[in-house]
């Protein structure tokens, strides 16, 4: 299923989308696959499929550790792309958004890389360290391969830049509610809600809000503020990292959590005016 159809479907249902973020291969591949299944079966609409990078500068301590473990255990970009195929083979049809840092596609060749993930079954890509200024190749190759490059908007983004980003974006917009890196936060603060509203004024494109979301309440709040969905990532890693020996044992807890966050997305949608 492509992103557009997914958002249409959710709109019809009157639900906000939930996109969980998983770095593939932590602590090992088989667990990642089961984690993805669990997430999708219990509420995930879209899957953010992370390819671990050695220096994930936009990620907080939780995801840094995640990447480090995955790499130590031998995960590579090639095996990740194989992993996307495996997800599809297991019958999961939700849209898949690949996330990685730009050096990974850069060394393979951006076009080449996008073709590969497209072929494996992905619909879009997030490269947090590619701002509009450096996006020409990603945009051009994205168009050629049919992969949406997803852009981020931050509280620091000026009106000027916001327009530029909206102009070139496709798929959806990733709204970073807080100044900082990925990771669970106690409270979301007004900034996220304000930013969602600010962006909404400029575009009808789907907006997914992320960074710091880990609860039903937070998800509900961002969707109520006008976002079309919520992203959560470190929240899930924080559950299974407590039991890295047998991470499968944490899947029931993760199932509950993803259900709650999805519930928040649904509730929030209802509170929209």
């Amino acid at each position, binding site marked *: 299923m492509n992103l557009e159809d997914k958002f249409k479907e959710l709109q019809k249902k009157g639900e906000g989308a939930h996109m969980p973020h998983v770095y593939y291969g932590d602590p090992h591949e088989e667990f990642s696959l089961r984690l993805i299944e669990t997430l999708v079966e219990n509420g995930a609409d879209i899957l953010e499929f992370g390819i671990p990078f050695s220096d994930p500068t936009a990620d907080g301590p939780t995801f840094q550790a995640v990447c480090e473990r995955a790499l130590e255990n031998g995960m590579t970009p090639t095996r990740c792309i194989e992993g996307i195929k495996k997800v599809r083979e297991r019958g999961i049809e939700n849209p898949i958004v690949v996330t990685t840092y730009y050096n990974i596609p850069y060394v393979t060749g951006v076009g080449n890389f996008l073709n590969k993930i497209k072929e494996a079954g992905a619909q879009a890509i997030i490269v947090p*360290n590619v701002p509009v200024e450096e996006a020409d190749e990603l945009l051009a190759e994205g168009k050629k391969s049919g992969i949406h490059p997803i852009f981020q908007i931050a509280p620091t983004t000026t009106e000027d830049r916001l327009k530029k980003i909206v102009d070139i974006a496709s798929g959806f917009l990733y709204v970073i509610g807080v100044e900082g890196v990925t990771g669970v936060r106690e409270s979301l603060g007004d900034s996220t809600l304000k930013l969602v509203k600010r962006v909404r004024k400029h575009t009808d494109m789907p907006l997914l809000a992320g960074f710091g979301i880990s609860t039903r309440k937070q998800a509900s709040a961002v969707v109520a503020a006008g976002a079309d969905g919520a992203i959560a990532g470190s929240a899930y890693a924080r559950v299974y990292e407590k039991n890295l020996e047998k991470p499968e044992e944490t899947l029931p807890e993760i199932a509950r959590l993803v259900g709650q966050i999805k519930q928040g997305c649904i509730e929030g949608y209802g509170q929209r005016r």
Partner: protein
Amino acid sequence: MKKGKFGEYGGQYVNEILMPILIELEAAFEKHYPTAEFQEKLNGLLKDYAGRPTPLYYAKNFSKLVGCKVYLKREDLVCGGSHKLNNALGQALLTKEMGKTRMITETAAGQHGLATAMAGNVCGLETEVFMGVKDIKRQASNVKRIKLLGAKVTPVDIGMGVLKDAVSDTLRKWTTCSQTTHYLMGSTVGPHPYPEIVATFQSVIGKEIKEQILEKEGRLPDTIVACGSGGSNALGAFRPFINEKDVKLVFVEGGGESLEADNSAAAFKIGKPGILHGAVMQVLQDENGQIKPSRTRAAGLNYPGRGPEISFLVNSGRVKASYAFDKEVFEAVKVMCRTEGLIPALETAHAIVYMVNHKEEFDENELVVLNYSGRGDKDLETIMRYFHES
């Protein structure tokens, strides 16, 4: 060439949070740097606080040893013991102009952290220095200095606990506070406009070299040799000579234990272009694009990337890249101690190795400027231990 690009190198590969801050920084630099007021403040501090101009010293005894005429550009005499303060003072002034009240940075050898703390205190700015836990241990004396100056030292224990990891963490921290806080980048690395800003502030080295060598010798040097990783002292020395095609420019990076060692720091020898910390650079990485940690005994050269400009200059053939192994470096320290009574920083000693190893290539009238980037006080323990153990 596009602004911030050096051939395929450079750029601004940062996340959206930081982009507006980089744009603001670029604008502030372009606005303030050229003004007479800024220049006056900067030159005042460079002269009276940092101790510029630094001498261009004809090292007679060392020259005799290597068989040509070697001048040392004495950046070791800059306050704090290395070239780092040239840049730190410039960026601290810029921070004030931008109305920010804090500075964060990372450091490996501790020289840049020290320079930042000094510049911060002089300009009345709070400072926080990120430092890998491994570097904190091996550059203990600089850590003490930084703390004594009142700066906060934040240990970084992710990754290998070295510079690369400290830069990553400083970038992360910066995304949380960029509106009040300036990231004082310590070398010609990072996203545009940093490589440009740092190289500009460091160019005072090369400008002085040019004036001084003309005064002393009536001609330009045949060769300028500098060590480096990010490239700030090298570019500082090279920049005013890049268009002087007869001046040979040599950049010496850390070879570590050996080139075969999986983690030699010789990025020009065994790295390739890649994107790290906001820019395309020559960088050590595996076949999948994962950045590889580097390893050299010189903490200040222990970075897997080479800044965009020096990457471009080497790639285009204008600058010759060389490297020195740890063992040679320690011997070079001794050579400089004995011939000229100067204890060089381990980083600086890399440039000295180049001179010693290429003796036969120089003829006696050859005029070489060696950018003597820092003094070895910070490395004293390491050096003594090396000679004691070996």
